């Protein structure tokens, strides 16, 4: 092998290369993630300048004033968990069907067909529902059939439909992965021991798919917390989320310090969710499921 001096030299050269390769990404993270988030923290402690924007101060007034936007927090904290739950209930049977009941020949194609909509324009897909639920879409059809006048758009229900439509693919995928890994012999063993199909499902399949369920729920919940487009287009200013309050605070009323405090509380709520998630997956011995 090489002499000590050369290996020392090459180790030094390697370190220099590593630093060089990491530098652009590191600088990017620093300038466009760490610093901006630090600015949000600093601004959230300041006060609004008379003309809008930021004036330096050091107070918790913005945080104490958070209840002024209580409706946005309430809508988010009610509709995000309900949306996650409905997504889960809709996604589980499909993931089960794909992982257990479909022949491997079509499995991949069918799975890709579920995921494809998630990567196509979110704006256009949400707009499609505006079109369907709007006055001349389904309600007109219902009226023609004879159900009388029904209002669908700009209600919590329309927001919920948009949520399920937008995020269902994200829920199916991790559940599918955990169900596909499941050892089918366990189910045969349960059946041999006289267990009914329902009982096998409840005692074998469901607990073993828990990591996928938890991952899916967390992903959907986190994205829902920061949602803006669905409540904006399908809630029409009547059912608004924290995201809508943030757009209002930053782009309309230009109350940056208060907006920063709202943004910080959103991030804190999310961090709490992630921590809870890590605790839960560790308890179920789950591996993390890559989504991309």
């Amino acid at each position, binding site marked *: 092998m090489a002499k000590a001096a050369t290996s020392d030299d090459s180790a030094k050269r390697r370190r220099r290369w590593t630093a060089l390769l990491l530098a652009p990404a590191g600088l990017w993270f620093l300038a466009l993630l760490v610093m901006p*988030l630090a600015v949000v923290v600093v601004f959230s402690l300041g006060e609004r300048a008379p003309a809008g924007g930021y004036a330096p101060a050091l107070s918790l007034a913005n945080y104490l004033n958070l209840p002024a936007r209580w409706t946005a927090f309430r809508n988010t904290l009610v509709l995000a968990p309900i949306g996650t739950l409905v997504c889960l209930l809709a996604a589980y049977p499909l993931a089960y069907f794909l992982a257990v009941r479909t022949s491997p020949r079509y499995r991949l194609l069918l799975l890709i067909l579920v995921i494809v909509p998630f990567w196509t324009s979110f704006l256009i897909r949400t707009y499609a529902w*505006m079109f369907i639920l*709007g006055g001349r879409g389904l309600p*007109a059809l219902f009226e023609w059939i004879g159900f009388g006048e029904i209002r669908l758009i700009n209600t919590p229900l329309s927001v919920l439909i948009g949520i399920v439509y937008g995020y269902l693919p994200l829920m199916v995928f991790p559940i599918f992965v955990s169900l596909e890994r499941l050892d089918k012999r366990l189910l045969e063993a349960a059946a041999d021991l006289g267990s009914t199909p329902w009982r096998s499902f409840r005692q074998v399949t469901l607990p073993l798919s828990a990591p996928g369920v938890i991952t899916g729920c967390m992903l959907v919940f986190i994205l829902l917390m920061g949602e803006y487009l669905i409540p904006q287009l399908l809630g029409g200013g009547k059912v608004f989320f924290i995201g809508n309050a943030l757009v209002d605070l*930053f782009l309309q009323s230009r109350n940056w310090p208060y907006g920063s405090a709202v943004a910080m509380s959103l991030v804190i709520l*999310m961090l709490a969710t992630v921590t809870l998630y890590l605790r839960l997956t560790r308890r179920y011995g789950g591996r993390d499921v890559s989504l*991309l």
Partner: protein
Amino acid sequence: MRAYAIAIYLFLYAPIALIVLFSFNSGLSASDFRGFSIAWYGKVAGNRFVLEAVTHSLIVAAASATLATLFGTMAALALQRVTGWLRAVFDGLTYVAIMVPGIVIGIATLIALVTAFDIVNDLLLAIWPADDPGAVPQLALGYGSIIAAHTLFSLALVIVLVRARIAGMDRSLVEAATDLYATPWGTFRQVTLPLILPAVVAGFLLSFTFSFDDFVIAFFVAGSKTTLPIYVFASIRRGVTPEINAIGTVVLLVSLLLLFSAQILLRRGAKPTRAT
């Protein structure tokens, strides 16, 4: 159960099909179908604002995807030999970049850049050797800020994808090349790069798709550079027209094309990676 699956697929694809169908509507109103026509496509192609927005979007998507792919691949390659605190810091930052909601990224970038620009612009006004204040160059939101903000998310995406590929790579190939006296650069070019290339190209395509589709980050940091999603959002607020359906159909088609290329590339190669 099969019926349920069919119902879900209908639920997923019917709204998309509806958009495509109504983009060929000859009627003026979006919601009553009068007959087949491609008039709205012609109208879109002749709309100066749409073309401008498409140009902005394409430039931003190409630039941010290129930067993210280059820097992300570099970082992923370096991270395979890094341990300890540096690796923990990069892991943490990558996940934060992916997890923090787009809306918070948009806000944070907006206020950080506007604050920084104010300071720099005041400085420029003070030191620039020109009598006319209008001649002094001033920083403003625009291409730079959207590209920078999109690159942040895409960078994290590329790092995750390429690292997954490297993790599934056969290390003995690299060792064999070194034993056979290949230079580090030769090993990289002839062994490592071909192995990670599918993930790199897929990362580029996904980054491009993300940037092209993103509304919420661009909404905050675009300044006067209206991207296509911002244009579509503004037209939706003005009222529903078949023009939006036509734009939507084209956008869906383009992202489907990019997506399938990415899928095929990610699946190529003997060893499946964790990425799907």
